[in-house]
């Protein structure tokens, strides 16, 4: 069964850049063609540093390719690539019908930078919008002042109510005292 694959291989850093490109053609492309496959896309990234050391090496050449191959031939290809001394590491992944069109490494990076710029610009715009919204809050503060005046009026009315209630208490107290002082009741 024919299937689409993608390979990313790292080539030894002891070679020159031109020799490394030839080495990639020899060790990857020729083997696929011998197995009856067809190469649809290839891209040589060039020299690139590793994120960590691989067998005392700090950098290498990256090579990416897409191809179609019978799934039976895959085992032999993997075995051959593992035996090859010039290829440090490789990764083969399947491609679906939904996967996008192939892009070179420089195209991927330029697309990413343009998206990043757009994202930053949108962030700045949102921050500006927040700043412009601040004067609207001041309008609300004016409303608050009206509320405070209402509250002050209410407080004054409460105080008046308290003043009104105080004399009533006094009257009750006086009456109580009068009753207590009365000798006729014999309490």
């Amino acid at each position, binding site marked *: 069964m024919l299937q689409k694959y993608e390979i990313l291989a*790292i080539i030894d850093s002891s070679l020159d850049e031109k020799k490394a490109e030839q080495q990639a053609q020899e060790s990857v492309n020729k083997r696929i063609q011998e197995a009856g496959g067809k190469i649809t896309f290839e891209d040589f990234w060039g020299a690139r540093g590793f*994120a960590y050391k691989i067998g005392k090496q700090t950098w290498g050449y990256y090579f990416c390719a897409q191809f179609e191959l019978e799934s039976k031939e895959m085992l032999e290809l993997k075995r051959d690539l593992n035996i090859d001394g010039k290829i440090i590491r490789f*990764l083969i*992944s399947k491609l679906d019908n939904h996967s996008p069109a192939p892009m070179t490494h420089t195209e*991927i990076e330029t697309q990413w930078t343009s998206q990043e710029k757009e994202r930053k610009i949108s962030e700045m715009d949102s921050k500006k919008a927040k700043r412009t919204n601040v004067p609207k809050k001041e309008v609300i503060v004016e409303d608050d002042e009206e509320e405070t005046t209402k509250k002050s009026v209410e407080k004054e009315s409460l105080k008046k109510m308290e003043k009104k209630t105080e004399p009533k208490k006094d009257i009750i107290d006086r009456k109580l005292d009068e009753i207590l002082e009365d000798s006729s009741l014999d309490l």
Partner: protein
Amino acid sequence: MPPRPKKFICTFCRNEQSYIDYKNSKLLSGFITYYRSMQSRFHTGVCLKHQKQLANAIKKSRIMALLPFVRYEKKK
């Protein structure tokens, strides 16, 4: 009860990006912590569908030495 407001919007959903490439190491480096472990969905605001794709992409790029497994500190 009114509906809860959404704090984050998934960055991949906004760009209508269905496929996350493991070769794009600059993009993936934004979803990694200071100690180079994967950033959780809680902090980045990525949706579940894209977080699963993103985790696979980071693992692949680590194998090809595009991203580190752990933070490497130089000896003084």
